């Protein structure tokens, strides 16, 4: 594990923009991102949202598929624990997707490239901050090549 080496392999360029796939649950996090919009809270355009019914419906395969297709980071955001619209979907998400982090580490992909957050429909500012932080944390990692099918 020579993460230090990866950094060197990816000379930081001014123009590097991490590509993020953001799976947002319909009831909380997507609504929270709508609120960020209504409140005109600005955040980087790196994260493209895919709205799903529930964070529990995000299969680990979707996350891996995103990395295979060249995502630099994957975000899964759901309702706060205990507040799931479907009662317990986010518990399933948390348990299942924790393993994705371990799997990433095992395969040599920085586990920091995968992130989960709990953003309620009332937390527009928090959603914006989650994206800002994720982008900032991904920048030093450079582009993700380990799992990508073919280098672009």
């Amino acid at each position, binding site marked *: 594990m020579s993460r230090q080496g990866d950094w060197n392999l990816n000379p930081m360029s001014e123009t590097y923009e991490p590509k993020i796939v953001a799976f947002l649950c319909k009831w909380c996090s997507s609504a929270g991102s*709508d609120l960020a919009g209504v409140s005109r809270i600005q955040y980087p355009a790196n994260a493209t949202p895919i709205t*799903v*019914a529930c964070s*529990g*419906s995000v299969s680990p395969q979707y996350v891996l598929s995103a990395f295979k*297709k060249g995502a630099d980071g994957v975000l899964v955001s759901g309702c706060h624990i205990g507040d799931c619209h479907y009662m317990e979907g986010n518990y399933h998400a948390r348990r*299942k997707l924790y393993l994705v982090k371990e799997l990433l580490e095992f395969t040599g992909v920085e586990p920091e490239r995968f992130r989960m957050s709990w953003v309620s429909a009332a937390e527009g500012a928090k959603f914006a901050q989650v994206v800002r932080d994720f982008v900032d944390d991904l920048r030093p990692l450079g582009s993700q090549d380990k799992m990508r099918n073919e280098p672009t």
Partner: protein
Amino acid sequence: MSKKRTGVFVCHCGNNIAATVDVARVAQEMAGEESVVCAKDYVYMCSDPGQNAVIQAIKDNQLDSVVVSCCSPTLHEKTFRDNARAAGLNEFTCEIANIREQCAWVHKDRAKATEKAIKISRSAVRRVSGAKSLEPIGIGVTRRVLVIGGGIAGIQASLDLANAGLEVVLVEKQATLGGHMIQLSETFPTLDCSQCILSPKMVEVSRHPKIKLMTYSELQEVSGYVGNFKAKILKKPTYVDPEKCKICDDCSQVCPVVVPNQYDLNLTARRAIHIPYAQAIPASYTLDIKACLGLNPVVCGKCKDACEAQAINYDMQPETVVEDVGAIIVATGFDLYGQEKLGEFGQGKIEDVLDGLQFERLCSASGPTKGRILRPSDHTEPKDVVFIQCVGSRDPARHCAYCSKICCMYTAKHASLYKHHVPDGRAWVFYIDIRSGGKGYEEFVQRTMEEDEAIYLRGRVSTLYQQNGKIRVMGTDTLSGENVEIDADMVVLALAMQPSAGTAEAAKVLKIGRDKDGFLAEAHPKLKPVESVTVGVYLAGTAQGPKDIPETVSQASAAAAKAIILLSQDRLTHAPTVAQVRKSHCTGCEMCVDACPYEAIHLENGKAVVNDVLCEGCGTCSATCVRAAIEVKNATPMQMNQMIEAVLGF
């Protein structure tokens, strides 16, 4: 799958989207997608001409699917799906790409925002290319309502429902209807007698042909879904046949067991066989099995011998009844905050320190003192009575953070009633501030101060203790800045209202949420104040939050109206975006069965089967299945993968 013919409609939203996103370019990029046969942009897609343009384009181009790139689907998904249907498409082949809230409004860089809008729109195009036409699932409706709780909220809701022609099952835990309201003497601000306004309603409930009254019964289990709930109710044995009971009182005359009477808040005693009060509904005695010597003629059997009507039956058994209902109203009411938690006020151990409900009983003509206000300890008339407001309320550090709302008013009523009963006595009221919002409420408080000469002291009481047959109350008057010590004959605490013990159980059985204070949570604090988060379950009365009688009655009628609206439909519809099983892939491992929060999946011949009506389409099953054998319609892994590709620029 045959290739789709998709139309993409990109909205400028005036300048809301167009200022940051190059909408023409988005439309142009979408036109390059394989499945897209027409792509347009327009200044206001949701306006009448915009909607007509969509409908026209669907017809002109024989579209079979539509993507509208505009605002959040929460705003106009329904609008455009209705349009799609109007143009002859299935509405489930219409998707919204949110390029306003999730893009144009949160970014300033036009190039980046345009790129992101293209990705969002493209992912929606890819999604609809795998979308199937779906029809809403129709479900039948049982036109009956279960009302839980027989206080004023449950009574009002039941009567409204029954008078609208619906059948009602009213379940009450206690042996009689009436709840806490029947224990009150008079009600503010008009001072009508509580019994006089409530008893006729109770009688109406008991005689109403549409209402099935189940007292001394408890809700045990609820299964099913909106329109079709199954409620399992335990009917506890009263050991007295209400049909035969003549309420002659012969049985209780001979009963040897004496226990505190909860109806009088333990200020009086009753026998093991008893009727809570003379006007109880149903008009029948109840044998309290916990107090009784044991239902055994060898041990006692006196009541049975004394009953000439032969109404007493020791062999009565608990009975479980299953009722089919379409909607449920929860009106489980309140309890007072426990005095035992109040060390500074004697922990409930000082006899002449009463709570508000006990004082109501003392004032009541049917109460333990026949309406004379007397000290419980020595039956003398108290000359100095201290009323303390906000006991347990508005005290986030130690007790409840919230305001119990009704205490200012009922304390004013108590002080006023006391002065009417004991004109030469002195009524002292300690308060933090007076909250008397409501018709005629402020005037009532002013009358209590001015005409009844109650002495209002703005401040709190730090402690009280017994001394020389009196209760020394150590308070402060913050307006004069002085400490106040009163040797009181009686103290009345305006205790906080808290959700009744049964409320937590009901919430659990019904899978409805509670707020931080334990009250039942409404679906929306402003726009859905009587709906719970579970469709078909409504809330009424103090189980939802502290409130007075007029508010409780209004909320009960509102809850009844909501249930009537729901059940006035012949059939209810359920979203068809539910899970489906690919039988060839399913190995019957049951992982989806365990993951489903709605128990909507079961095995049949070793394969998973989904109950469409129970399934909410959350997709947790599909993310759990390791063989991709179960997926949610129109949100399949295939579609998701295509969306991921689109997002990553493929």
